[in-house]
Structure formats: C-alpha cells, structure tokens
C-alpha cells in the first residue's frame, strides 16, 4: 500500500510540475522531484521494496520526461545504490548531510544522462552546463527536498514506523 501511495504521489507531483512549468518561465527552475523521492526511498526503506519502488519511479520519470525508457530508470537505480552505500558508511542522519546528498545526486544524474547521450547518437555532450545551469538546478532540488520529504513521510507512514521502532527499543 505504501508503494502504491508513493507512486500516486509521484504521479501527482509530476502532473502538477509539468503544468506549473507551462506558467513558470525560469530556465533553471525544473526540479527533479523523482530524484528527491529516490533519495528519500534510499534513506528510509528496505532494500528490495526500495529498489522496486525506485525502478517504478524511474519508468514514470522516463515517460514524463519524454526520453528513452530505461535512461532515468537506470540512473535512479544507480543513485539509490550510491545513497545506500553512503548510508552504510556514514549514516547520514542529519538533515544537512541529507540535503548535501540530494545536491550531489542532482549533479550526478545530470552527468550520467550527459554520458548516455552519445549512445543515443547525440554527439554534443554539454558537460559545461553541469557547472553553471546544473548547480542552479541542483540548488532548486535541494530547496524542495524538505517539503517533498515531509509529504512523502506522511504517505509512507514514516512517523508510525518511528513510533514503532522507539516502542520496540524501549521494550
């Protein structure tokens, strides 16, 4: 049920974002809301369920982005894996560290897609844009992380999970 909730939430976010972008004409304002959710899933959920969720989120994102199916699916799985590894090493419990993680992941995903372009027959890589426009895009993602995560937390019942964990720990 949580997964279904998360998918519906992602669909609603992308539908709303797509329409909103038709009115907001700022070049660097194109937040990658699914990436924010992917990092959330990587930090909060179990490996198997989390990876399936990320896979499905990737398929949805590919469809909304209008790019070849599998591009963002693979990219998000890569990000999910890297965040899981980071989590196992230094347990990013602090909000600030998590926000930095979103910022770094935003830049990584742009670089990853740029790397994939040649395989689709697109010659120009455009890595220059990761330095300028990419940083702005990543900052927008970082700014939107807190509200998106708080909504996502409510949907997947994060507080309930926390309460149960604390309850078990105290027993």
């Amino acid at each position, binding site marked *: 049920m949580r997964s279904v909730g998360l998918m519906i939430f992602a669909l609603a976010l992308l539908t709303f974002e797509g329409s909103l972008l038709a009115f907001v004409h700022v070049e660097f304002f194109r937040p990658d809301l699914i990436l924010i959710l992917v990092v959330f899933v990587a930090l909060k959920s179990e490996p198997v369920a989390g*990876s399936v969720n990320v*896979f499905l989120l990737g398929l949805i994102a590919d*469809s909304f*982005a*209008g790019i070849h199916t*599998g591009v963002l699916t693979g990219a998000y799985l890569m990000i999910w894996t890297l965040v899981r590894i980071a989590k196992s090493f230094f347990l990013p419990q602090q909000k600030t560290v998590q926000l930095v993680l979103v910022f770094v992941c935003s830049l990584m995903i742009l670089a990853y897609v740029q790397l994939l372009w040649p395989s689709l027959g697109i010659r120009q890589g455009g890595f220059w844009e990761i330095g300028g426009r990419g940083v702005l895009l990543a900052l927008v993602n970082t700014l939107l992380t807190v509200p998106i995560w708080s909504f996502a937390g409510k949907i997947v019942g994060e507080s309930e999970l926390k309460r149960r964990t604390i309850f078990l720990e105290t027993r």
Partner: protein
Amino acid sequence: MKWLARNGSKLFVLGLFILAFLIYQANSKGVREQNWLDKSLLFVTAPAQRAFVWLIDEAGTIWNDYVWLLGVADENKKLKQRIDELESKLVEYDETSAENKRLRALMGMSSKLRGYSMQAGRVIALSTSPSSQVVRIDIGSLDGVGEGDAVLSGSSLVGRVTGVTGGYAEVQLIIDARSSVDALDQRSRARGMVRGQGVDDTCLVDHVVRTADIKEGDRMVTSGIGGAFPPGLLVGTVVSVTSPKVGVFRKVLMTPVTDFSTVEEVLVVKNRSQKSVTNQEHSYEKEQE
C-alpha cells in the same frame, strides 16, 4: 544456500539494474517510440494537466475581475473601483491583443502553408526532466495529429510530434539534445543540420562545410529535404561562425526564433510523415522505373 540468502537482496537489485539496462538497450536503437506505459500515463495525466491549466486561467480571470475589485472597494470605493475596472479591462485587452497577434500569426502561417492540413493546439505541460525539452499539447490522434508531424508557432518551427494519444500529443522541441532539423541559410542556401543542445538559447548548426557562405545574422530555414518539415519555415538566426584550424566543417551557432518559454498556442502540420513517406515511395518507384 546461506550465501544466496545473505546476498539475495543484492542479487535482486542487480537483476533490476540488468532489467533497466535491457529496457534501455531495446529502446535506444532508434527514435523514441511511445510504449504502452507512456500512452497510459499520457492518457491518465494529460486531462489533469489540461484541467490545471484551465484552473489557473480561470483563477487569474476571477482574481482580475472579482476578488481584486472587492479588495479595493473599502477605500475610495467609486474611484478605485473605476480605476481597477479600467485596469482589468486593459489587461484583458492586452491579453486579447496578444492572443489576436498570435492567432493572426498562426493564420498567416496557415495561408502560407496551403495544401497542408493544420490544427491549432495549446501547450498544457512541459517535460519534468532538465535533460529533455519536450512539451505536451492538448490535441491528439482524434484531431488527426500523428507522430512525426511538424509543430509551428507563428512562422517559426517549434518541433515535431513524437508521441500521440487520443486527445493529447508529445512534442520534441528543436532545442532538445536529440532533435535535428535539415536547414538552409535563407540568403546563400548553404546547408546545415540544426541540432538542439538541450538549452533554450542556442542550437548547433552541424555539417556546414568550410567553403559555405554563412554569416552572423543569417536566417536559417527548413530545407524540406526528407519531408520531415515543410520547406521555408524559419528556424533561427546565426549568432556565431568559427572555422577551426583543422577539420572539414565550420562551427556555427544559431539562436532559435521561437521563444520556447512563452509558447502557448501551436499549429500542427498534419500527416506530414505520411505525405513524406508516400512521396518518398513515389520517387523510389519512379527511380526504379
């Protein structure tokens, strides 16, 4: 077995990676085609997006026409109300005038493209990924729109239809990194391939030979070769021409004429792909004869 139980989740994730890679491999060989998932998501979410756009428009109208007037009614009721009425009317006139201009441009283009069937549509959403430049419009196969159809705004080229469902279509803009348009210099007729770079301001004009007569300020128009776009549509203006020390081609940059951030209404040239395919088939048959 123990090893399998311990590493089961890792293997599962690896399997998903492989699946994603295989899906990508299967899809990356040609031009992107809409699959059942794309079509279903477009079918489900596009009406919501159209409703959202309508809601914003209506909210703007209500705000301009009613709420704003009620808000100022407390102070200097008569005068302010009058000013606000005039202001809101002015905004309305400006809006109508701008819409009129756009529609006139569309109609002007319509008369230029006699012989082609046209359909006007409205942009209802943009791509949510910064890596792609795709928009959704509120007309689809029920209106006669098909994949490969050219999309215009006024007299300039916007892109081409890459996916279509009943009432909606997906348009790949010419600034998308995967887009390429065969174009001509309007002045010298020098040929080049306009390729998007994924950003709003510039496109690359590829395959322009060193000897080609091409200058800054020249206008690039569609060549019509290949039948993907009608010939003579304005694509952009050349902003820089450099000749590298080595190599056969010049490096030419172009700014698109269309301001993609403000495109609201578009015109779809219907059945272009079918026509071009038919034309190509005819020419092939003639050659064979």
